[in-house]
């Protein structure tokens, strides 16, 4: 195909609205965070001076940072694994023909369709009833059991994680079902002849074929996991005392007014996210996959 200068120009013209939108929303905030993380900008001191890496050094020397980082990573790993496992299981069940399929599909779709930003509110207050209700005893026992093993505030945290898995698992299931539909059925027919058990088939055929979609699902689950946590944190005025990088950064910035340090905390996740992106891109957007 001929690729003229006119086509290239047209392409940039067509991409312009999307780029303008992203830049308008993200460029200034990202630049501000980066710049502020190198200054001592805070409501406690006048003006702002360049302090180099002092904020980062203070952060790395803070034991709370390492604790928050560990909690953040565990939260992402656990919820993402649960979402993938549940989602894959539900997708495989829904991919097989059955008279119930259409109805069950709608049921599985529902947790995601239920608007998450408000549902998490209901969910949180249901699992952490503020007043005495009919199941306070059960909720209280659960809360006590979890908090006494993992530390105060753990149950509130777990209830958000459960919500994230419930809603995100539904999204993953529908997403992977679409992925399964995109794989030619002959491949599964061959696999049925070549492998001995259903488990083998899953491990050696289905999962490798689904790998790009599994990687995409992980990618999409990051943002949701963060948003749910932030929502509840906001809702409860910071009552989730379990520190996570994002919420602690927010607390430092909004409540304490230490913008410089808060920015350093916020950006501490960037290397991890970049690493995850590198791995995921390799899986769902391999460089030499498609001839242009």
């Amino acid at each position, binding site marked *: 195909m001929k690729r003229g200068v006119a086509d290239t120009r047209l392409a940039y013209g067509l991409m312009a609205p*999307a780029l303008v939108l992203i830049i*308008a929303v993200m460029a200034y905030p990202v630049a501000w965070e980066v710049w502020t993380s190198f200054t001592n900008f805070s409501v406690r001191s006048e003006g702002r001076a360049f302090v180099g890496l002092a904020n980062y050094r203070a952060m790395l020397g803070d034991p709370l940072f390492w604790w928050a980082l560990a909690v953040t990573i565990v939260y992402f790993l656990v919820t993402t694994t649960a979402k993938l496992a549940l989602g894959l299981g539900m997708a495989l069940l829904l991919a*097989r023909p059955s008279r119930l399929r259409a109805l069950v599909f709608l049921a599985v779709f529902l947790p995601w369709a239920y608007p998450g930003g408000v549902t998490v*509110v209901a969910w949180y207050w249901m699992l952490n009833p503020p007043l005495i209700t009919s199941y306070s005893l059960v909720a209280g026992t659960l809360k006590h059991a979890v908090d006494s093993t993992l530390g105060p505030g753990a149950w509130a945290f777990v209830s958000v994680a459960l919500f994230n898995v419930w809603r995100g698992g539904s999204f993953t299931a529908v997403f992977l079902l679409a992925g399964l539909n995109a794989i030619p059925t002959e491949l599964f027919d061959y696999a049925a002849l070549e492998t001995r058990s259903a488990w083998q088939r899953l491990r050696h055929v289905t999962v490798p074929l689904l790998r790009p979609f599994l990687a995409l699902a992980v990618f999409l689950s990051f943002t949701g996991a963060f948003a749910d946590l932030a929502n509840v944190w906001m809702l409860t005025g910071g009552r989730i005392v379990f520190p996570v990088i994002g919420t602690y950064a927010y607390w430092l910035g909004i409540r304490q007014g230490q913008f410089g340090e808060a920015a350093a905390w916020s950006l501490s996740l960037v290397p991890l996210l970049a690493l995850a992106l590198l791995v995921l891109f390799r899986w769902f*957007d391999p460089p030499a996959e498609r001839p242009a």
Partner: protein
Amino acid sequence: MSVRGRWRHALLLSVIALYSLFPIYFITVQSLKTPEEDVFGSPLWVADPTFENYTELFESGEARVRGYAILPKVPFVIWLANSAVVLAASVVLTLACAVPAAYALGRLRPPGWRWWRRVLFATYVIPQTILFIPMYQVVLAFGLDDSPAALVVIYSAMALPFCVWLLSAYYANLPREIEESALVEGATRLGAFRRIMLPMSRNVLVASGLFTLGTVGQDFMLASVFLLDRYKQTVAAGLGVMDVSLEELVAVAGVNMAAIPVVILCALFARGYVRGLTAAMLEGA
């Protein structure tokens, strides 16, 4: 499949349906209870259902009395209308930006298109929540506080990366002949796109639209900070500021009321959503 296998499959399907529906059933049961039953009844069913919590959302007047407390009236209908406006505008803006960009990346392939696509997609993982303070500065600088326009722009930027990815994968997978036959007949590139490829991608557009809806629906935090005026809030922002310890069940009823239109929309488009995703996933993501 054997008879036993079919039964086992049906049983497992029922289990996942129950698992998916139970939380919604549970909150709905609580929202139908009177204050007395909320304390003394069973958590799993409601003996004497009342729509009190729901009707309270729509009551007029400036204040209402509940027990010993006087609470401000909830302008729930206005919240619903505001949410609908924000939602519709976000979907329109997202698709208006995503479709041309996806066509350019999937079809015209400017130099470095792969990196453009990756960079665009990478912005999706940046949590908006950590960019929140400078974002608020921008909103203030443009005088957009208490305006749904700020939310529409931010939500669209959040949903855009995935929609561009999805649509560009679909356009890239379409056979060249479809476009070329139109070009031979004298259509321009954009004309061929608009008349032939765009209608073909209907399901992928549905998938992108529903994904945007899910993204907008997920937010509570941005809405609750950017919209402070009670009469300009969306449902999420409004329910968030209710005094939950006193009005827990009303808030839950509000969640259900807000969910009903969204659920109906999703149910209507569910099939198109899966088909659209599948269409974009054929031959690699």
